């Protein structure tokens, strides 16, 4: 039978394809059927947070940082509650990472604050002597791409029914609504409002000035994103 196949390239290719494809069918499809439902407390990203997420991706922070707390005592002690599937419901793409050169960041919003991130991103060794993380000085100068974040929000609302402008339940029983502007201008304005809150806790005068002038440096966006990781 194998000799037969080896003389018939077409059937050979079909046989290979069948053998390699059905593992995927069996392993992956079932999970799609029970598509990940958000857990209580999981909200879609705001425009500024999403722009920050793009900055995170642009700089491949995921090359050094995971966002997956495994259910081990040593990890929950260090990073907080182990990760749950539903918490990632709005993560496109997922950012679990595969290497921890730096610590996990899945809940970093719980134990780090804006001013700390500001110091740390500007010069990691200034707060953590011996850190091998690169300094991200240019984030204080580059402007965040709010438009693209907004475009992504529109896309996922339309295509995947991500609940913007809808109430989502929170852990304490209350509800929250993540607003989605109905125009780019509106999105820029609401992102700027969020940015002002962050900039108020920062010390870098250039960043404060930029935000006052209506611009959003990448650092503000990425801090908004890091603060949202809880």
């Amino acid at each position: 039978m194998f000799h037969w196949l080896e003389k018939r390239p077409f059937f050979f290719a079909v046989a290979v394809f069948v053998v390699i494809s059905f593992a995927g069918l069996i392993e992956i499809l079932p999970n799609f059927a029970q598509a990940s439902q958000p857990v209580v407390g999981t909200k879609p990203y705001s425009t500024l947070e999403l722009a920050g997420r793009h900055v995170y991706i642009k700089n491949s922070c995921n090359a050094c940082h995971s966002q997956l707390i495994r259910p081990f005592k040593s990890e929950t002690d260090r990073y907080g509650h182990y990760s749950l599937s539903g918490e990632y419901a709005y993560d496109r793409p997922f950012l679990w990472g595969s290497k921890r050169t730096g610590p996990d960041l899945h809940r970093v919003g719980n134990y780090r604050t804006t001013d700390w991130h500001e110091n740390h991103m500007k010069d990691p060794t200034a707060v953590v002597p011996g850190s091998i993380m690169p300094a991200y000085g240019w984030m204080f100068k580059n402007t965040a791409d709010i438009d693209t974040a907004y475009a992504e929000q529109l896309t996922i609302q339309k295509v995947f029914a991500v609940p913007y402008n809808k109430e989502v339940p929170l852990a304490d029983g209350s509800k929250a609504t993540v607003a989605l502007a109905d125009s780019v201008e509106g999105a820029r304005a609401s992102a700027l409002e969020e940015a002002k809150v962050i900039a108020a806790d920062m010390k870098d005068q250039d960043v404060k000035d930029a935000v006052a002038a209506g611009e959003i440096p990448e650092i503000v966006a990425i801090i908004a994103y890091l603060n949202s990781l809880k």
Partner: protein
Amino acid sequence: MNKTVLAAIIVVIAMLGFTYAAVEMTGGVDKLMKGGDWVNMLAILGAVILVIVTSFVVTKYVRQMQNDTATGKLADENWDGIGEYKNELPFGWAVIFLGSIVWAMWYFLAGYPVNAYSQIGEYNADVAVHDAKFEAEHKNMDAETLKEMGGSVFIVQCAPCHGLTADGIDGKAANLTHRLEEKSVKHVINNGANNFKTDYPGGMPPMLLQDPAQIDAVAKYVASGFKADDTAGKAAFLAGTCNTCHGENGEGMPSVAPKINGWEAAMVATVLKDGKKGAIGAMPAFNNLTEVQVKALGAYVTDLSK
């Protein structure tokens, strides 16, 4: 001895040595065995097996290159001059392959469902064992040990902001080797404060003092730990503005105002519960720490300013 065998033995010994070095760096073989951490032991075992099996098997085939000769019936075909022997499968390989397939099927169809493994279940069991072990030990901790434990939590959880020596790394976080900075006191007087909603629900109103000179004086007095002979500062503090809530010497009043003349464990617990945002920056709340850990941190921080 044959050079190849010798080389294999050297490789094995070297790799075992490296593995040993890694174990040594993290506490040594003794701790590995007694530590009771399965994962560590299995990982080391895996590393050892990997080195030994690979070296052994490769050596076996290299010996055949050295001592054996190629034999077998050639197939009729040949491709660009490459022939193929119709040799049988190596026996060991075939048996293990078959065995592994049978094992995988058994594991999947019978072994796994029967064990009904759950990683979260395993986690819960682990935590329970861990807690039980240490709760028993934590019961009778003397002050000295408590402080020591506080130090160990501090290095992991707090040092990234406050620094290893708790000096706040050049003003980037609060310097915990003393209670308050002038800057912080001024900030509070000017802006009021309402961080500790659980313990001091009323908060502190802003603008109780308005004369800049007076504010300066009070700030100096408070920041010095109520020790400076600054009569102006002392007088202003006692003038019925501050002392009504914080007490004559800044010792604080339950539910009204915190102690500001030095650290006490309860105050540290308050900060950890509610976090704090002030003149220096923002500190997050730490609600995932255990009661003992909070007590230990209290003891540690209180001790720092002594």
